[in-house]
């Protein structure tokens, strides 16, 4: 087991290393470079001064060398300075990560509970009226553009009904738990609705398959109640593929977070990455993207471990 985890960790590290290089290269291809912004605010800069500054900042060196220097300082824990926030990027990242975790966890719990319930109910009678409605709901969830869903939520619940605030994470001067929760309701609902669709389909398909299995028939034949059969005998087995797929989808969750945070002006990771790319904040964009990759890599690793833990038949090599 330990060897398995170690090997997977090694693989993840290699992927991360490759990714850091790719992202570093891509960020370098974005419009302008750090100096352009400096020059723009200083009309007196002569070409000689600019060239001198380029040399000081090492911007005249080849890509590999620049990446190498960045990597060394990143490994020492120095990810550079954010231009927009005038703070080390890691200090900007901390609070944003916390905010995103709240959003992701809350919406993840909501969508998992919702999809388990609806998926199981739909699987009880495939093709029935209830199943058709749930399937329609699931398809709608997969097909709706998240940003538009957020827009419609704002239109209905904030602009027309005034039930919830349209943006931000707390009112100034309040910021208590209830106030924060009120601000989180719409983003969480939006993200949860968007994710539930796919989850329902996985749960439903897996449940239908398991309900047809022999051991379920045996359980029924031995007189187990329907509730016990569905929840204990079938659901536990149906869970195995579902957990993997849901964990593998964590990356998609992140994309959804970027949209909901941007739409509802929540100061999380997603909005931070978006703003940093818009505002040419190279260091922050790089750090944010790397962190997002780390989070997805870790969740994939956890998915693999959970898979082995749920299904003892899969021998860990």
């Amino acid at each position, binding site marked *: 087991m330990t060897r398995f985890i170690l090997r997977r960790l090694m693989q993840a590290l290699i*992927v991360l290393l*490759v*990714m850091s290089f790719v*992202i570093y290269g*891509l*960020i370098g*291809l*974005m*419009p*302008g470079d750090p100096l352009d912004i400096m020059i723009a605010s200083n009309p007196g800069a002569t070409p000689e001064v600019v060239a001198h500054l380029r040399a000081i900042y090492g911007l005249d060196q080849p890509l590999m060398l620049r990446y190498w220097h960045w990597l060394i300082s990143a490994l020492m824990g120095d990810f550079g300075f954010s231009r927009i926030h005038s703070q080390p990027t890691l200090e900007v990242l901390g609070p944003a990560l916390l905010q995103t975790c709240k959003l992701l966890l809350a919406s993840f719990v909501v969508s998992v509970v919702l999809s388990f319930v609806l998926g199981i109910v739909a699987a009880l009678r*495939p*093709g029935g009226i209830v199943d058709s409605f749930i399937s*329609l709901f699931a*398809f*709608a969830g*997969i*097909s*709706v*553009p*998240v*940003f*538009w869903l957020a*827009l*419609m939520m*704002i*239109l209905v619940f904030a*602009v027309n009904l005034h039930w919830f605030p349209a943006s931000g994470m707390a009112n100034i001067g309040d910021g208590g738990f209830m106030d924060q929760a009120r601000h989180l309701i719409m983003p969480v609902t939006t993200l949860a609705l968007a994710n539930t669709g796919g989850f329902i389909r996985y749960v439903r398909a897996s449940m239908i398959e398991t309900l047809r299995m022999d051991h379920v028939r045996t359980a029924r034949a031995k007189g187990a109640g329907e509730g016990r059969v569905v929840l204990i005998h079938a659901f536990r087995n149906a869970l195995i593929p579902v957990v993997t797929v849901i964990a*593998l989808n964590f*990356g*998609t969750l*992140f*994309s959804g977070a*970027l*949209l909901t945070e*941007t*739409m509802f002006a929540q100061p999380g990771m*997603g909005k931070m*990455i*978006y703003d940093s*790319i*818009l505002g040419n904040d190279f260091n922050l*964009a790089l750090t*944010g*993207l790397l962190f*997002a*990759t780390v989070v*997805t*890599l870790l969740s*994939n690793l956890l998915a693999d471990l959970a898979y082995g833990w749920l299904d003892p038949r899969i021998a860990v090599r």
Partner: protein
Amino acid sequence: MSGIATLPDRAISVGRLRWRRFRTHRAAVASLIVLALLVLFCLAAWPLKTYLGIDPDATDLLARFDPPSAAHWLGTDDAGRDELLRLMVGGQISLLVGLLATAIGGIFGLLIGVTSGYFGGRIDAALMRFTDGMIILPLLPLLIVLGALDLTKLGFTKEFATSGAAGFWRIVVIISIVDWTSIARLVRAAALAIKERDFVRAARASGAGPFYVMRAHVLPNVATPIIVAFTLTVGRVILLESVLSFLGFGIVPPTPSWGNMLNNAQELVNTAPALAVYPGLLIFITVIAVNFVGDGLQHAFDPRSERS
């Protein structure tokens, strides 16, 4: 000859059989009709443009957010442009991006999948690690970075980089760069399963090269799941395009797309809510219809599936 069942002259063709099965999926049939209507709606831009005599890109800042009238059937947008015409033209762009990016990414995925599955060994291991790597990437942030790249730094001329065509092709290319993984895995699995079958071995033993085997045996056998996967990809790509254009990293105005028509979302919600509804609703309807058609195709192609 009574008492003996007569065989029909000709057996039903596979295509007809599938069409029959497809027809039993009511949502899919309805969706197919909806899609046909949507395409007609988008193509109606040309006749309507001449009939009303309006240029969909012509701005009129004195006529911002005009209510629906005889000249502008759905009113005007935040720059005084005709909303209905822009919805139609924007639809053409969005659908075209969906089809093109799916086709390019699909061919890419097909090549990788077939190569990986057929040759196996180290090539397979390397290509699949690459695919796994692509899958775990945070998709949207990556697409935004790709959408923000400075084309002049890649050696394109400045005229091209700022032209509308560049905006269009850029989004097609970046989406197809990231969205090929599901097709690649599907094709790989199928190729792996098929290459060990006896008829393929027989073909190889009689001297068939890898290209022949792939074209004649592997690809026809994976055609049906690929068609389904392509369909579902079109829906996903349309969503991605709308998101990127909405965020300002896709199709650049004045060229409309359903996504960038919502660029001004905050202002729209407060001043002209209807304009915030139309483009998104069209995206939603298109994508849900595409997904239902995909579901119907899957049902039609799978002889084991039963419609209960």
